[in-house]
C-alpha cells in the first residue's frame, strides 16, 4: 500500500520541516508526516482523529489534547520486545518507520465488538463490582475475575525482556527551571545573565511551550522567533544546560528533583551505546516551576466523541503542526482565551460554524470576530450534546440563551473550560494546592523549600505577566543562590484577559457526559458516589476511579470536584483538593533501574583466586555479592556429591586448600582495642596474649547471637577480627556504632580490610608440610613454635609478607595463610604446587560446609537471628566477670527457658536415609501438628568419613536428649524419617587432630 496524501495538512505554516517526509504506520495503514510532527499531529494531518477505545465502555475516542495530559489517544508504540503500551500519541515525536497500533479493541478500532458494553452501561456504573460477583465464592477466581481482568487494562506489554538500556545520572545547579515556555525561558535568561548555573528542562522536543502553538508577538517578533533568539542566547552560555525531551517528574526531599530524559525515543531504536532514557537526579539550590497550565474540559453529553478537542490543542495542531483537525468547527468556550481559536481558524482557512459562549455578555471584539468568521454566535448558549460516530463528529445540540435547542452541523468542536495551573510538583512533598475563585482553579499553596512557581503555573495566564514573572523570579532565584542579578527588562507583549465564567457541567444533557475520559467516569457516576456517601474527594476518586488513569486526571479532576461540590452544596475548597503524587507523567520502570539488571543487578565480588579457580573448572556459587568456588569437579565426576566427597576425603586424609578471603576482616587498633573487644564479645579478649587467636561470639543488644569468628592479637594494641562472610558489613557497622555512639571515649580505630587480604585455609594432616615449603626459610612453624590457635607474621614465596593463623574450621590440622590480595593469584598457584607431592586438592564451599557440620560448628543456618549463645552450646563462653553487649537481655526468661530448641546432632536411624535441612522434629508416633513441633534441622551433609548423612538441628532441650529418637518430618518434600539425636560433633570430639 502506498500512503495517501496528507489530506488535512495545511498548505503553509507550522513548525514542521516539509522538506523531509517520514513514513509511518498506524494500525497497519501507511501514512506520512514530517520532522517536527508528533504521532498525533501526523495522524490528524492524515485525517485520522479516532485513536483509541475507552477502558470500560469501549467508546471510540479521538485525540483530545496536544500534550502529556492526553487521556484518549493511547497507542501501542513499536512492536516486538520494544512494544510500549499506553503511549500518548500526543507526546510521541514522529520518526521514520514508526509503527503504532490502537489498543483495547477487537477486531478493529473502527468496529469494536466490546462496545456492547455501552449497552450494559446502566449496570456498569461506579462501584458496581463491589455489589455483586459474590456468589458462589469459587467463581471469583475462575470466572468473574478473569473476565474483568481481560476486559480491563489498555495496552499489552511486551512479554520479552526490554532490549534497550537505561542510564542514571546526577546533576547539580544553582537554578533549575522546569518548563521552557515563555516564563521558563525568561527565568532561565534572567538567572543565567546573573551568572548562575542554570538547568532548563522541558518535556517537549522543542522549547517554547505555548509560543509554539499561539500567534504571539513579543518585542515585535513572532513568538517563535523570540523563542529562537532566547534559546540561542542560552545555548551560547556555558553555564546553562538545556535539556529538551526531559520531564521533571517529581520533587523529593533535600531539593532533589527526578527528571527523565528521553534520549533515544525519537529514533526507531537508540543508536549503539545510546541509552533509551536517562534518569536524572537534579539537586538544585533553587528551582523555578514554570510548567504552565492544562486546559480543562466542560462536561456535556457526548463530550468524549471523536472530534471534540481542547481548544488550545486545536490551535497547537493548526499553528504548530499545520494540520487541520476539523473543517467545520464549533467552539465552546467559557473564557476569552478560547476565542483565540477563531482568529487562528480564519487564518488557516478552517470554517468556524458556531461559537457557543455561556457567558451572558462577551466583549464586542469577539462579536466582531464571530462575524468576520461567518460563525453563528450563541451568547449565553451551552453545548448540551455532541453527536457523532467512530468516524467523527456530526452535529452539536446547542441550548440557546432563550432555552431553545438548535442543532448545528460540525465535524469538530473545540472546547475550553478554563485552565488548571500545573502545580503538581509543589505538592509532591505533601503540600496542598489552594483554590482561587477569581480564576476558578487551584494554585500552589505552600511550596517546598527553594521552589518558586512562575507564570501560568501561578494562574497568571497572560503572556505579559508570564514574561514579567520569569524575569523577576529567575533573578530572585539567582540571587538566592548567591549571585547578583540585574533583572533584564521585560519584553513587550500584548495584554490578554481571561474573563472566565466557571462552567463545569452542562445540565440537561441527553447522552453520556464524561468527566474522566480514560477511566470512563461519567457525571452520573459522581451522582451515584455522592448518593452512596463517597463524598470526600479521596472516596470519590477511589470509588469512581476518577483521576486514576494514566493522565492522572489532568483534564478531569477539577470538574469532578466541582460536580461533587454542587451536589453536596459545598464550595469546591470545602469539598477538597486534588492530590498529586509523583511521577508527573508516567516513567518507564526500566529508567529507574538503569544498568542494574541481569548480571549487573548487584556488583559481583570475586575472590583473589577466582581466575585460578575458573581455570580449574570450578563450579561457582553466589555467597551474598561474592562468587565462591563451590566445588572443583574432576574429569569424569558427573554429580556434585562425588566431587565434594573426594575433596573432603582428601582434606581429612592429606591436605586441601580453600579460599576463605570472603570472611570479613577488621583491623582494630588502639590502646583500648582489647576493651572494645571485651565489650562486644561475650568472652574476653583483652587478656589474649600477643600471637594468639581466640574464637569469639558476639550478641546483639537483645541477647541473640549476632556473629562469631576468630580474632587474633597481632600486637599489644592491634587485633584482626574475622567475621562470617554474610555478616562482614553488619559487624563492621556494629563496631562503628559501638565506638562512635556508645563509647566515643575509647582510644580505638578500626577499618575493614576484607578486600585487602587474600586468605587461604590449608587443612589436613599434610598441611604443615605444605606450608613449610611455602614460607621463607627462617620461620619456624613447628607445633612448638606455632601451636594451635597461634598467629605469626611470616614471608612466603620469597618475600611476600603474610600472616599465618593456626586455626581450623575443618577440624584438621590447619592454617590460614593471609597475603596482600594482589598476591592471591600467585600464592594459590604456589600452594597447589607445594602441596602436589602430598596430594593437595582445592576444595570449595560445599566441602567446607560438610567438614564444619561434621565438626558441629554452628554457621549461618544456626546463627539464624533467634538463637542465643546457650541455644548454640556457647553458653559457657559467656563471661561472668565482665559486661558485654547483650548480657542483660540474654537473661530474660524467654531466652533462658531450658525448653528452647538448642543445638544437637542428628543421624538417620536407617543409615541409608538422606537428611534434609528444614525438616521439623516430632516425637515418635506424635500426630503431625504444631503443638508437637519440637524444632527443626538446620544443616545437613553427607559425611564421607562416616558414610552416611549427618545433620545439625535445634531441638527442645537438645543437649540432654542424646540417644533419643525422633521423627524428621518434611511434608513439603514428602519426607518422614526417624533420626537419632546425638552430639553435634561427629568427628574427633577431643580435637586431637587440631593439635598435632
Amino acid at each position, binding site marked *: 500500500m502506498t500512503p495517501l496524501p496528507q489530506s488535512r495538512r495545511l498548505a503553509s505554516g507550522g513548525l514542521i520541516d516539509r522538506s523531509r517526509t517520514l513514513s509511518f504506520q498506524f494500525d497497519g495503514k501507511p501514512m506520512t508526516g514530517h520532522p517536527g510532527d508528533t504521532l498525533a499531529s501526523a495522524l490528524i494531518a492524515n485525517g485520522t482523529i479516532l485513536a483509541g477505545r475507552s477502558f470500560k465502555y469501549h467508546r471510540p475516542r479521538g485525540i483530545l489534547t496536544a500534550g502529556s495530559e492526553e487521556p484518549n489517544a493511547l497507542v501501542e508504540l513499536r512492536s516486538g520486545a520494544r512494544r510500549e503500551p499506553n503511549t500518548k500519541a500526543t507526546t510521541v515525536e514522529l520518526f521514520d518507520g514508526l509503527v503504532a497500533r490502537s489498543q483495547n479493541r477487537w477486531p478493529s478500532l473502527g468496529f469494536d465488538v466490546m462496545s456492547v458494553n455501552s449497552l450494559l452501561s*446502566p449496570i456498569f456504573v461506579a462501584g458496581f463490582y*463491589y455489589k455483586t460477583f459474590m456468589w458462589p465464592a469459587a467463581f471469583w477466581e475462575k470466572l468473574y475475575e478473569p473476565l474483568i481482568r481481560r476486559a*480491563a487494562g489498555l495496552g499489552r506489554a511486551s512479554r520479552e525482556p526490554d532490549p534497550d538500556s537505561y542510564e542514571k545520572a546526577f546533576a547539580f545547579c544553582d537554578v533549575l527551571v522546569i518548563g521552557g515556555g515563555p516564563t521558563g525561558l525568561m527565568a532561565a535568561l534572567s538567572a543565567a545573565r546573573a551568572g548562575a548555573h542554570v538547568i532548563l528542562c522541558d518535556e517537549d522536543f522543542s522549547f517554547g511551550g505555548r509560543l509554539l502553538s499561539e500567534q504571539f508577538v513579543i518585542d515585535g517578533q513572532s513568538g517563535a522567533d523570540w523563542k529562537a533568539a532566547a534559546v540561542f542566547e542560552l545555548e551560547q552560555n556555558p553555564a546553562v544546560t538545556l535539556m529538551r525531551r526531559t520531564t521533571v517528574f517529581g520533587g523529593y526531599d533535600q531539593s532533589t528533583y527526578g527528571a527523565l530524559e528521553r534520549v533515544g525515543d525519537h529514533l526507531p531504536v537508540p543508536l549503539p551505546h545510546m541509552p533509551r532514557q536517562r534518569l536524572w537526579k537534579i539537586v538544585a539550590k533553587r528551582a523555578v516551576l514554570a510548567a504552565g497550565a492544562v486546559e480543562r474540559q466542560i462536561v456535556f453529553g457526548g463530550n468524549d466523541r471523536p472530534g471534540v478537542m481542547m481548544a488550545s490543542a486545536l490551535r497547537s495542531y493548526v499553528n504548530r503542526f499545520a494540520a487541520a483537525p476539523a473543517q467545520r468547527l464549533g467552539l465552546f468556550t467559557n473564557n476569552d482565551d478560547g476565542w483565540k481559536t477563531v482568529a487562528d481558524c480564519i487564518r488557516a482557512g478552517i470554517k468556524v460554524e458556531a461559537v457557543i459562549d455561556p457567558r451572558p455578555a462577551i466583549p464586542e471584539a469577539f462579536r466582531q470576530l464571530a462575524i468576520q468568521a461567518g460563525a453563528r454566535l450563541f451568547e449565553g448558549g451551552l453545548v448540551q450534546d455532541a453527536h457523532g460516530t467512530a468516524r467523527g463528529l456530526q452535529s452539536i445540540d446547542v441550548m440557546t440563551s432563550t432555552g431553545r435547542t438548535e442543532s448545528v452541523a460540525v465535524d469538530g468542536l473545540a472546547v475550553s473550560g478554563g485552565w488548571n495551573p500545573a502545580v503538581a510538583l509543589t505538592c509532591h512533598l505533601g503540600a496542598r494546592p489552594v483554590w482561587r475563585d477569581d480564576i476558578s482553579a487551584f494554585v500552589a499553596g505552600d511550596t517546598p523549600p527553594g521552589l518558586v512557581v512562575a507564570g501560568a503555573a501561578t494562574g497568571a495566564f497572560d503572556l505579559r505577566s508570564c514574561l514579567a514573572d520569569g524575569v523577576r523570579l529567575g533573578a530572585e532565584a539567582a540571587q538566592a543562590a548567591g549571585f547578583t542579578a540585574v533583572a533584564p527588562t521585560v519584553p513587550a507583549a500584548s495584554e490578554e484577559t481571561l474573563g472566565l465564567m466557571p462552567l463545569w457541567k452542562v445540565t440537561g444533557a441527553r447522552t453520556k457526559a464524561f468527566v474522566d475520559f480514560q477511566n470512563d467516569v461519567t457525571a452520573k457516576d459522581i451522582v451515584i458516589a455522592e448518593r452512596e456517601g463517597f463524598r470526600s474527594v479521596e472516596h470519590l476518586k477511589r470509588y469512581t476511579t476518577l483521576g486514576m488513569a494514566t493522565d*492522572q486526571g489532568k483534564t478531569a479532576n477539577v470538574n469532578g470536584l466541582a460536580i461533587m461540590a454542587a451536589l453536596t452544596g459545598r464550595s469546591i475548597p470545602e469539598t477538597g483538593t486534588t492530590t498529586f503524587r509523583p511521577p508527573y507523567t508516567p516513567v518507564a520502570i526500566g529508567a529507574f*533501574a538503569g544498568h542494574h539488571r541481569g548480571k549487573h*543487578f548487584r556488583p559481583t565480588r570475586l575472590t583473589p583466586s577466582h581466575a585460578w579457580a575458573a581455570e580449574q573448572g570450578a563450579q561457582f556459587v553466589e555467597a551474598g555479592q561474592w562468587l565462591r568456588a563451590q566445588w572443583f569437579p574432576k574429569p569424569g565426576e558427573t554429580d556434585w556429591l562425588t566431587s565434594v566427597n573426594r575433596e573432603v576425603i582428601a582434606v581429612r586424609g592429606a591436605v586441601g586448600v580453600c579460599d576463605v578471603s570472603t570472611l570479613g576482616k577488621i583491623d582494630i587498633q588502639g590502646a583500648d582495642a582489647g576493651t572494645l573487644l571485651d565489650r562486644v564479645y561475650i568472652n574476653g579478649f583483652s587478656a589474649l596474649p600477643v600471637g594468639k587467636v581466640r574464637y569469639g561470639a558476639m550478641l546483639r543488644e537483645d541477647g541473640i547471637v549476632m556473629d562469631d569468628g576468630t580474632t587474633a592479637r597481632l600486637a599489644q594494641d592491634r587485633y584482626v577480627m574475622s567475621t562470617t562472610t554474610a555478616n562482614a558489613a553488619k559487624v563492621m557497622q556494629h563496631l562503628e556504632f559501638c565506638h562512635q555512639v556508645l563509647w566515643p571515649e575509647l582510644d580505638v580505630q578500626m577499618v575493614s580490610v576484607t578486600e585487602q587480604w587474600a586468605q587461604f585455609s590449608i587443612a589436613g594432616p599434610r598441611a604443615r608440610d605444605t606450608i613449610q615449603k611455602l614460607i621463607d626459610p627462617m620461620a619456624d612453624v613447628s607445633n612448638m613454635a606455632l601451636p594451635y590457635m597461634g598467629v605469626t607474621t611470616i614471608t612466603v614465596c620469597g618475600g611476600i609478607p603474610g600472616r599465618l593463623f593456626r586455626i581450623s574450621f575443618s577440624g584438621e590440622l590447619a592454617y590460614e595463610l593471609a597475603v596482600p590480595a594482589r598476591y592471591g593469584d600467585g600464592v594459590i598457584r604456589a600452594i597447589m604446587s607445594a602441596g602436589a607431592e602430598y596430594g593437595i586438592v582445592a576444595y570449595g564451599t560445599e566441602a567446607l560446609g560438610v567438614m564444619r557440620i561434621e565438626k558441629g560448628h554452628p554457621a549461618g543456618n544456626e546463627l539464624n537471628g533467634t538463637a542465643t549463645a546457650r541455644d548454640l552450646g556457647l553458653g559457657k563462653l559467656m563471661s561472668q566477670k565482665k559486661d558485654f553487649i547483650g548480657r542483660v537481655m540474654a537473661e530474660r526468661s524467654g531466652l533462658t527457658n531450658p525448653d528452647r530448641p538448642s543445638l544437637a546432632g542428628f543421624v538417620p536411624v536407617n543409615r541409608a536415609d538422606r537428611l534434609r535441612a528444614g525438616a521439623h522434629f516430632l516425637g515418635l508416633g506424635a500426630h503431625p501438628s504444631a503443638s508437637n513441633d519440637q524444632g527443626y534441622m538446620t544443616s545437613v551433609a553427607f559425611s564421607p568419613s562416616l558414610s552416611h548423612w549427618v545433620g545439625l538441628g535445634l531441638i527442645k532441650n537438645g543437649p540432654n536428649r542424646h540417644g533419643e529418637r525422633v521423627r524428621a518430618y*518434611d511434608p513439603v518434600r514428602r519426607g518422614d524419617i526417624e533420626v537419632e539425636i546425638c552430639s553435634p560433633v561427629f568427628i574427633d570430639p577431643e580435637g586431637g587432630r587440631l593439635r598435632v
Partner: protein
Amino acid sequence: MQYSAFSLLKNALTGHRYWKPAWREAQPRDRYDVVIVGGGGHGLATAYYLAKNHGITNVAVVEKGYIGSGNVGRNTTIVRSNYLLPGNVPFYEWSMKLWEGLERDINYNAMVSQRGVLNLCHSDAQRDAFARRGNAMRLHGVDSELLEKEQVRKIAPYLNFDDARFPIQGGLLQPRGGTVRHDAVAWGYARAGDRRGVDIIQNCEVTGFRIDNGKILGVETSRGFIGASKVGMAVAGNASRVAGMAGMRLPIESHVLQAFVSEGIKPLIDTVITFGAGHFYISQSDKGGLVFGGDIDGYNSYAQRGNLPTVEDVCEGGMALMPMIGRVRMLRQWGGIMDMSMDGSPIIDRTPVDGLYLNAGWCYGGFKATPASGWCFAHLIARDEPHAVAAAYRLDRFATGHVIDEKGQGAQPNLH
C-alpha cells in the same frame, strides 16, 4: 439495602436513584460503650466484630480524616498466611479463613482473589529456610508447596532464568494467598458495622485521653469529648503518637514504606511474586496496573512520602527479576507510615490504663491481618481476655524475651 446482582439490576432500572449511603454520616454522641480510635481496616473490623460477635453495638469509630485514608488504602493488597513462627501462623491463618468468607459475611465484594503467593529462593540456604517454613505451615494445617525451578518457570515463564545475578532456584507457593481490593475492605466493614448500629465518625481526630485514677473515661477529640467505658487504639502508623497521649512509650518506630502502580495493561502477571535476592514484590490489579513495592525507606518518619533511592532499589529488583517490565511505566508512587515493632510482629493487648486497649505494630504486613485483628481485638475488648490465636501478641513480650521475630533481625525495626 442488600447488595446482589438482583439489587444491582433493579437499581439499574430505576437509574440508581435509590441506593443509600454505604454508611451514615454519624455525628458524635456523648458517650459510647466502646470507642475505637482509627478508621482503618483494623478499627472498622473491630467495630464490626464487636457488634456481630459480642452484641456490643453502642460503638463509635473515630477517624481523623476519611475512613481508609491510612494504610488500609495505601498497601499493596497482598494477603497470605505463610508465616513461620507458632505465635504468628494460627493468627494469620485465622485471618485467611475470615478472608475466604468475608464477602458473604459483610455483603460487600472486596475481590478476595486467591491467586497464589509465590516467594522465590535463590540459594540452597534459602530453599532450606523455605522448607522449614513450608513444613511449619503444614504442621499448622496451612497450604504450602515447595517448588523446583521448573515448576516456577511454568507459573511465571517471563522471570529472568537466563542471565540472573542471583539465579532462581525454586520457590515457596501458598496457593490460597492472593490479593484483596484494599479500599473495599474499609468500606465493606464500615457498611457492615453501620448496618449493625456502629457510628462511623469521620473528620474527628483524637487529641487526648481522659483518664482518672488509672481508668479510661473517654477521648478528647477535635469535635469535643466523647465518653466511653472502653477505648481501643487501632491507629497503625500513628500508634506511638496516639499512645503517647495516654502516657505510654511503645516499642515501635514509625517508618515510611512506598508502593507503586504502573499504567493499566492487559493481564501479564497472574500471581503474587516476591523476589528473594532483593526487595521486590509484585502483583497485577484487576484493573490492570502492576502493583509493586519493596523495602522501607529506612529512616524514621511520619511523612507519607518516600524518596528516590528506594524507588530505584525497588525497580532494580523488578528489572532483575522480570526484565519484560522495563517499558511499562510507573504511574504513581506513594508512601504510608508503618508501625514497625521491635520484633516485626504486632501487639494486641491491654495497656496499663484500665479500659484502654492497644492494637499496633503491624509493620508492612497488617493488611492481611485485618479480619483476624478486628476479630481478636473485639474479643479482647469485649471479654477483657486475649483471643487464643492472638495470645502471643503481648506488650510485655519484649521485657520477657518471648519475642516473635520471623526474620531474626532483632530489635532493629527498619530491618523487619
